[in-house]
Structures are given as C-alpha cells and as structure tokens.
C-alpha cells in the first residue's frame, strides 16, 4: 500500500493519444547509422562545444486552437549539467532536463517529474540531442538526417510504438555546431517548435548553475 509511484499519471495518458505522423525527413533514404562517417565532424564539433546561453522562442500548436501559444526565454546548454530552459514569458519558469530527469522551478517551488520509463526516454533524448550523442540516441530512436553544406537536419523516430505515440518524432535543425530549431512533432497541427538564437558561449557562473541547473 505504501508504494504509490502510481501517481505519475503523465505519460499514461499517451495511451489515449493518436499515432504520430511521420515527417518526410524520416524516409529510408535518409537513414543514418550512429557511427556514420559523414556526421563525425559534427559529433566532434559538438563534443568540443563549450557551455552556452541562447535566447529562444517556443511555439506550441494544438489541434483545438487556431493560433499557437507563444513562449520566450533563455536556454542554457551544458555537456555536464544538461539543458535548462528559462521561460520569461508569459510566465517565469525554468525547466531543467538532465541525467536525473526533469525538474520544473516556478513560483510554486520545485517539482520533479515522476519516474516513468517513457518520460525518461524522451527527456534523455533531448539531452542527448544537444550533445549530439548519436550512439546513445540510436538505442531508443531510429536516426535520419540530411546535410547541406554547414546546415543539417536530423529526425529521431522512437523505436518503441508506445514512445512514438507519446512523443511523436523529434526534428532538430542546425548550422555547424549550433542547434537552431527543435521540433517535437505529433502531427502537422500538433507540434512544439523551439527556435534557438545564436549561442553565446561562456562558462556559467556559480549563481547561474545554482539558479538554472541542479
């Protein structure tokens, strides 16, 4: 009676969700292997990338709403500490994704997302995307990609049907070692698009680490 991790009702609702639509990028011709030599320069480049801050805007498209919900903020990416999204509008809130999972800080305090294997896989994926850790991503996702000069696009399609239904697919676009856009796409009318501005590489101060990471 005392073991109630039951209370995680988050992704369980994914069972009610429709199947996600597939992006054209996720076509067999674009499939890539984790160790694909054509992508190793980017892997190496991301590995060398220092901690950085960037402005971002986020648009959330819902099928029941005619216009997207718009959010703005600052993102912080750290190979060691994970990803921190500090929303400044419409409400101040910080979402931290790291190896321990998701932590949300807002006016009500801190909330850790409950343990759930599906949530853990999706959260881990976002952290790995920002590290360009293709071998780790390949464990849970099929990888697809295209390059055009320094520009590149990647699509991550969950291997597990349950996760595919819950998360959809993750599309990431960038230029050299900078990530410009992350899209979590359930369908053409239901997706989240995060547009990331130019990175401002700089080591995080102790105060930043305390406020924006755990």
């Amino acid at each position: 009676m005392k073991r109630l991790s039951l209370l995680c009702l988050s992704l369980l609702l994914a069972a009610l969700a429709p199947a996600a639509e597939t992006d054209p990028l996720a076509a067999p011709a674009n499939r890539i292997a984790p160790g694909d030599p054509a992508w190793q320069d980017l892997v190496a480049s991301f590995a060398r990338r220092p901690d950085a801050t960037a402005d971002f805007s986020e648009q959330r498209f819902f099928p029941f709403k005619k216009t997207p919900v718009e959010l703005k903020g600052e993102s912080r990416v750290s190979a060691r500490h994970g990803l921190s999204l500090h929303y400044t509008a419409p409400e101040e809130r910080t979402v931290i994704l790291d190896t321990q999972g998701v932590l949300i800080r807002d006016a009500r305090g801190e909330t850790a997302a409950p343990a759930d294997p599906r949530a853990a896989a999706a959260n881990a994926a976002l952290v790995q995307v920002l590290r360009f850790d293709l071998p780790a991503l390949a464990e849970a996702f099929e990888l697809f990609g295209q390059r055009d000069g320094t520009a590149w696009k990647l699509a991550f399609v969950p291997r597990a049907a349950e996760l595919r239904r819950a998360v959809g697919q993750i599309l990431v676009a960038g230029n050299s070692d900078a990530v410009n856009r992350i899209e979590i796409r359930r369908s053409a009318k239901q997706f989240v698009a995060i547009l990331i501005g130019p990175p401002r590489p700089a080591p995080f101060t102790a105060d930043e680490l305390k406020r924006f990471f755990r």
Partner: protein
Amino acid sequence: MTFRRRQFLGWGLLGVATLLGALWLARLDYAQKISSDVLDLIPADERAPELALVRQLASQAEARTMFFVLTGADGAPAPAAAAERFAAALIQSADFDQALPIADPASRDALGRELFSQRFALLFPDWLRAREAAHAAATTTTPFADWLATDTTAALGRFLATPEALVFQDVIPADPLLLMPGAVDRLKVGLALVQPAAATPAPPTLVWARLAASPLSDAGQTPAFQSIERATAGLRAEYPGLAVASTGVNRFAAASRARIEQEVTWLNLVSVAAVLAVGLVFIRRLHRGLHLVPVVLLSVLGAWVCTTLVFARVHVLVFVLGSLLTGVAIDYGFYLFMQPPLHPDEDYWAKVRRLAKPLLASCFTTVAGFALLLFSELPLIRQLGVFVGTGLVCALVAAVVYFSTVKNSFLEARVFRGGQAMPTGVRRGLRRLLLVVWLFALPGLARLTWNDDIRELEIPSPELKREDARIRALFGDRSDRTVYLTYGASLREARDSLEKLTAWLTTVGSGRTQAVGLGAVVPTPADHDRAVRFVREHPEFPARLRAEFAAAGYDEGGFTVFFDDYARFAVGPGAAGLEIAVRALQAKLTGPLGLLLHDGQPLSWFVTVARDAPTITPPAETHTVSANQLQSLNRIFSRYRQSALWLSLTGLAIVGAGVLLTYGLRDGVRIFAIPCGACLGLFGALGWLGHPLNLFHLLGAFLGVCLTHNYSIFTATSAYLREPPPVSVRMSALTTAASFGVLALSGIPVVRALGSTVALMVVLSLVLIEFEHLAALGKKS
C-alpha cells in the same frame, strides 16, 4: 468383586474410552481444525471497529502482499527484464494472483485511463467546489455559470503555456476543465512521500506480488515459497547469480508456526523430563511411577477430544499452554497413588471413598474456576478453559479407574522431612517472617503497572524484521510516514470520514503534514451530489463555455468529446453515480494501487499516507486508525485484561465459596489463605519490582490459585489427622513448578508470563505448606 474382575472392567472402560478418543482424533482434519493464525486469538465478532478492521485487513489484499528485490551476482540490481520474467513466473504458479515489476507503468496507466473515463463523477465535483469558492472570493455580481465559463477559458489559456500542457495535450479536447491535470497536481504533492528508492541513480529491481491464498494459511506459505524458489531457479540459467530477497506476512506467519511447533515439541519433552526428574528424587522404585503415565496420557487425550469436539477451530497456542496440564493432571494420580492404606487390608474403593472429599473438592472447584473462562471474550482463553477443565475431570476419572486395576495401589516414596526438619520454634519464626514479608509486599499491589501490548502475542523474529524493514524501505516505506485507514459501513461513510481526517490533518498538522491517498480523486458524497445538481440546474453552462472558447480562439469543434461526455453526465445515474464510479475505479486498481481503497462488508476504507503527521491519535469521529500505531489495539487488549480480571475474581469467589462450604468458615479461610496469599504476595512483590504485567500474568495467577488450593485442601486433610503435609503434595507441587518453570523458558512472551507466574505461585504455596501454615487445623479438631 474380585481384583481380576475389577481389573478387567477397569481396563475395558479405559480401553473403550481410549479407542473412541483415538478414533475421533484420527478422523480430524488438522489443517482445518488447528490454527496458527494470530487473528484466531481475536474474537470473530469483535465489536471494536479497529479489530474488525485488522481482521479484514489481514484477510484482504494488504496481508497477501509480498515484496521482492532482485539482485545480480555482483549485488547490483538485476536487469528489468529479469523482474518481468520473475513476475510472469509467479503468476503462472497459481500461488500468486498478481505480480508486477514496480517499474512497469501498466497499473498506473490503467488508473489514469479509468480516472479519465470517470472524470465527471470523480473529478468534476471537487473542481466545481473549488470554483464555487473562487467565485465567492471574487465578490463578483456575475452569475456563477457565466463567471465559470469565462474563468475556465482563462485557466485553459494559462495552462497551455505550462510544461504540463505538452503532457496533457491529447486529453485537453476531452478535458478543457483540466480535471485530469488538477488530479495529477493534487496527487503529486504526496508523491515525495511514497517515492521508492527508484529515484536513485541505480534503482533497485523490485517486484510486487499478491498471494492467491491467505498468508496465514498453509496454502499461502510453503507452496508460495516453493514457487518463489522455482521462479528464481528458472531465471538463473539466463541470469547467473540472481538472488531474490522477499518479505511478506507469510514469512512471519511461517516463522511463527515453525517456532510454535518447535516450542510444542521441546516444551513437552523438557516438561516430561522435569517431571521425571522430580519423580526420581521422591519415588523409591521409579518403574512403579510409570503407573502415573497412563493417567496423564488419558487426561491429555480427554482434553484434546473435548476441546476439538467443542470448538470448530482451536488455536495451536492452546496446546502449548495446555502442556501445563501434564503437571496438573498428575496431581490426582499422585495423591491417590501415594496415600498409604489405613491398614494393609484396606480395600481400594474404601481408600477412594476416604480420599473422595479432598479429591472432589479440589477437582470440582478447579474445574468450576476454569469453566468460568468460557465466558471470556478471547477465544484462546475459552479454549484453554475447556482444555484444562475437561483434562482435569478426565485425569481424576482416569486416576480412580486406572489405580483400581493396579494390584498394589500404593506408591511408596522416599521420606524427606521438609519443613519438619526444622525445630518448631524456627518454623514458627519463619512463618512470622513470611507474614511480615507478605504484609510488606501487599502495598506493592498499588504499584502494579499493566502493559497490554498486542505484540506480546507475536513470536519474536528479529532477523525477519530487519530484512522486512530493509526491503520495505526500498519500496518507499519510510519511518517518517504514517499510514491511516479511514473506515465506514459504506464507501460514502468512509469518504465522509476521510474528509474529517483531512481537515484534522490540516488543522493539527499546522499545514506541515503532507498526505496522499485516493481522497484526492474521490469526491465527498455531498460534493458529488452538488455537482449532479449543478449540471441539471444550469443547462446553459455548456453553451456559455462554448461561446467563451470560440471568443478565445479555440476551434468550434475542438471540444466535441467534452461536451458530449458532459451531456451524458447530466442525464446519468445521479447520486448513485459516485459508488458506480468508485467501484469501476477500484476494479482497475492493480498492484500497490489496489491497496488504497477497499469496498466491502462489514467495512469499506480508504488509505492515506502522511508525512509529518501529528503524533496524537486521530479523533474518534474521523473513524481512522493508524496502521503503524498499536495503541488502539492495545487499548482493546487492555479491555480484555479487565474482563479477564473480573472473570478471575468471580472464579476465585466460586472456588473460595466451595472451600468455605466444604470446610466451614474458619478452616475454609485458613485453607484458602494459601492460594490467595501466594497470589497477592507475588503480585505485590512484582509491583515493588516494577515488573509490568499483562493479561497472561493474570491468567497465570488464576491458574495458580486453582492449582495451589488443591495442595491446600490435600494438606488440610492430613492436618486434621495431625499428620505432616503429604508427600504427594510436595511432589505434585514440585512437578507442577517444574512443568510451569519450563514454560517460563519459552520464547513466546505470553507463554513465558503464564509459566513464570504459576511456577512462582506454586513454589510460594509449597513454602507456606512446608512451614505448616495449616497445622493449626489438627489442634482444633
């Protein structure tokens, strides 16, 4: 009648009785008849709801739960796949009806789906109450339904900008009131209370399972342990070194059973050895002492037969405590066998007639006292009353009949002078000293302390307890948490009481107490009924809400599912919908979730887990017991003790009245002073020593009084003849002290309490007898 004819008749009578008894015992189904279930010590119709709750809990899923921790060869957590296969193997065994890895979200998914399906009956009422409160606080003149439509639309807009919106986005078209996110939000407040160690970097591999049979029955123990062994062995081919640690009520029950069986064996063996040792000291030709064995065996046989005839189910502790019968039943044999004939030609039946008065007086007053135990509330005490009472009657009848078949019915004893070895003056001085000591001990009665602790009934198993605590901690069971069970005659009553508990936790806990339970998703009957009234009395609300959604930029058809479900709720079963919804939810609750709610007869209950809970017991009107507080059960045991005290005092009065009627007032008081004095003196001394007493010390004292008054009566018979205390009394007292002294070595606290009390009383009484307390009777006659 010739001796041969008497012998033939006696053997025939005893042979027929033995045969009938043996036949009865041979046809018994012992698994069904003999219980080692601690709950059988509690009355089945116990009127205290706490005990009814405990009985129900023990027979419900809670007690059938087993917890498993799987580790690999290196001690690290086993792979998740091993947990899945282990759980599957347990279910296949048929000894378990549920088994699931804790990491498996299937049960949570099922709960989520059912909550979503029943969201109007279960979640809407709470939401509506909160909105009504917000409307009242807003001090607006806008009608509630209009305000609610505007407020709901604004809340949805705000929610879509939160991280949770992405999780719930597929649900929102059917739930724009955000009932599901609200429920999750309420539940997750308590999540930290119940989060297992799974949140650590290397979470343990845990499996939760539910036994198909009661953990207190055979079927819930050995076969289940064998299934666990088989499942583990089967997996070791794929996962070498796999180790499975487990705990559950059945582990404790099996250990208790083994311990009791072991105690029955060694207590009886040591008891017989102790009695034989005493016999060796007193009897000249020990082989002749073997004539006492059939008397004891027939007494025990009679006790077994009568007890199993009277009771449908007998607790095994009765037989443990009943081993004392060996020491008591031998009394009549000793007295009859060791009394020398008046003259060499005295006929056996003449001797029996001569000794009939003390034999009958001692036997029937003792039996009357034990018969009174039949009025006890505790089944164990009632069973013990029948066991010892019938055993003593059988012992007396068997002794009289058996010794009629023995050619020389006199067992010569070695002569020990005992107290008589001392000069009369010394004896008188010692008697006076004893009186002073007794008078000094008496005020100790006022210092007696009682410790009625239900755990005294447990068999101590420290290793099992340590392992249990370790495994439960991995499952998130922490010592800083309090588990409350809130009960009622129906679900509605239980939910109303839960509301009172929640209010009490909020008030008394000063806002520090965090709690989690299904109360967060099951409304009170009043809230549910109000929600039903709202949807029926405000048919305009859906249209208002639709208009507000459209004005805020939402698709016209985006919430069709919601409005259809809302309309169905409006024409639904009304007030009865709450029970229907809760039962539907309960049907989907599997694994640990299934323990949060019970809908049944005679009680239904909700479970609440709280941190920083008040240290005091919830008030009576909350109808709540704390699962980790024993006070309420101990209070009930205290009531049993008081009831037993009254029974004992009444029994004493009966025994005393019997003695007074038989021996007259003056002699009767002197005779009865030995058992009563020993009892009061012993309890007084225990009071001075600060030794806490319990129900079983009281029961021991009652037994002690019944036994020692036998010695007093037998000694009085000799005193009237100006003879010293008969050797049979000395021998009988010492054998009884030996057999009860053996019980004092038991590992079971209640058996120890009973054994030590009786042994001490018997020794005290013997000392009084040896100092010729009753010698004055001879001088007066």
